[in-house]
């Protein structure tokens, strides 16, 4: 289990890197496009490309954001409870999140398969979109595994509290 988690950690670090590169590309691509437009040579399909890059940015950032507790929640009530109760609530809500994002990932794979079959392509570049949906589905899958990992961690913490 531990080995899987270290590998997962490395992988989400790698994803973070991809996200950073995609973000930089987004910026540079737009700048080049705008400058090109002034000289009557805009980049063909730049709007689509930027949308694709944005999808990569978010998909790659999902595991990292969850790890650093980047999502906003309402803390006021839970803060008043004992540490044990807090962990129990966390395990419960994380399980709900796990179910939600496993469903999302599963549906995303089905959706990707669907548009692969119908051969849907993007409007200008005629890029097959299903690649992107597969990528997002995969990002969601990794994200779900990360949520699972935090649940395991929480259970461990709870055990330690009990033995004390």
């Amino acid at each position: 289990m531990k080995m899987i988690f270290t590998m997962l950690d490395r992988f989400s670090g790698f994803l973070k890197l991809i996200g950073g590169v995609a973000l930089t590309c987004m910026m540079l691509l737009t700048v080049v496009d705008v400058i090109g437009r002034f000289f009557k040579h805009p980049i063909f399909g730049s709007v689509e490309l930027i949308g694709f890059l944005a999808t990569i940015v978010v998909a790659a950032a999902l595991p990292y954001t969850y790890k650093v507790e980047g999502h906003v929640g309402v803390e006021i009530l839970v803060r008043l409870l004992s540490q044990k109760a807090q962990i129990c609530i966390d395990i419960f809500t994380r399980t709900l999140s796990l179910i939600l994002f496993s469903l999302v990932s599963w549906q995303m794979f089905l959706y990707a398969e669907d548009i692969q079959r119908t051969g849907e392509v993007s409007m200008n570049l005629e890029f097959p979109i299903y690649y992107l949906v597969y990528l997002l589905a995969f990002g969601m899958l990794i994200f779900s595994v990360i949520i699972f990992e935090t649940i395991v961690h929480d259970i461990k913490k709870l055990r330690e509290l009990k033995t004390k």
Partner: protein
Amino acid sequence: MSPTFIGISGIIIMILMFLTRMPVAFVMASVGFVGFSCVISPDAGLVLLSRNIYETFDSYDLTTIPLFILMGQLGFNSGISKRLYDAGYKFMGSVRGGLAMATVTACTAFGAVCGSSPATAATMATVGLPEMKRYGYDDELATGSVASGGGIGMIMPPSVVLIIYGILTEQSIGALFVAGIFPALLVTLLFIVCIYIRCRISPEQGPPGERFAWSEKLKALLGLGETLVVFTLVIGGIFIGLFTPTEAAALGAFFMLVIALVRRQITWQGFVKSLMETLRTSCMVLMLIAGAVIFGKFLAVTRIPFEIAGWVSGLEMSPVLVMGVIIGIYFIGGCFMDALAFVTLTVPIFFPVVMELGFDPIWFGIIIVMVTEMGVITPPVGINVYVVYGVAKNVLKEEIPLEKIFKGIFPFLIAVIVGVIILITFPSIILFLPNLMY
């Protein structure tokens, strides 16, 4: 079960789930998905889940968000905040409470390149708090002005909350941006007046600093240059229709990076840090929007927003009174929940009501941003207060009690309320610039 009943149960369950500190975005998505499945069918719910998340992430309008966040982050990590503060300080430092006024003004200026309120507060706290400490400023005044001034960053374009409002209500982001300029300046002015009155009453709170020669003042003004250039390019470009908001954001971020590189003020680490911080914040914001979109679809099939809108307009209450109630809800909600999350959650509910009553959508956008801005500085969830508290602990190496910061904020809160009343009485302060656009 009628759709309305499912809708109301969904809202109640959602509020209960918020209290478990589960991320707001995930709660909205879960409740939206389950509710939609109950009203239509589970298959439809599953399809909704995957398509909406993909479409949100792929949307061109939303690409503005990471790019504007990146622009603010690059500004943060390249030290422009110090130069902005310096300019304000050289001009106003010699007046009683002048450093606090300089802080507030610098917050507005920084807000012109940064779209988030806590980021503005954190930036200016790092620069402003040590200076105010050095001149013997009262902790209450010092922390209060930084935390409240940070709130202006949310109204001053570019503003992430306004982008989200624009997307959820299908309003022009450009129009919302230019509409925010004068309200932001109004609040800045009110804050300065507020500091002035405060230091009149108790002069020991903000002793005057040293006076600078005009040559030095003018030199400090040069420090405003890059911010002014970036702001004019970005907002001006959107205003005259030269760029889309996404293009403006990308250009802004790029120029910020170039300026930082030319001045040798950004390191490789600083750049990577900006990227990572941007990834995290963008992911959080986009998940919130995805959650709000799913929840909004569920609300739409329950027809609750339309029923409320119909009901309210049937009440024959004066629209101003209804607006007062809505503002009250935003104010209270903003006290308990993150401003961004609260806006994404409630706009789908209240927007139809407000339209039914005949208010201007751009005007309403600015008003709710103003009101939720009060939320970021009021207890118990005033995020700016925690940010300033944290920065004070790191930078000043001393702990300023939270109550003290909240107390320091109180006069500024009154100033914001005065500002909201002025904007309700004179809507043209908000609307005249966007009206020039068409």
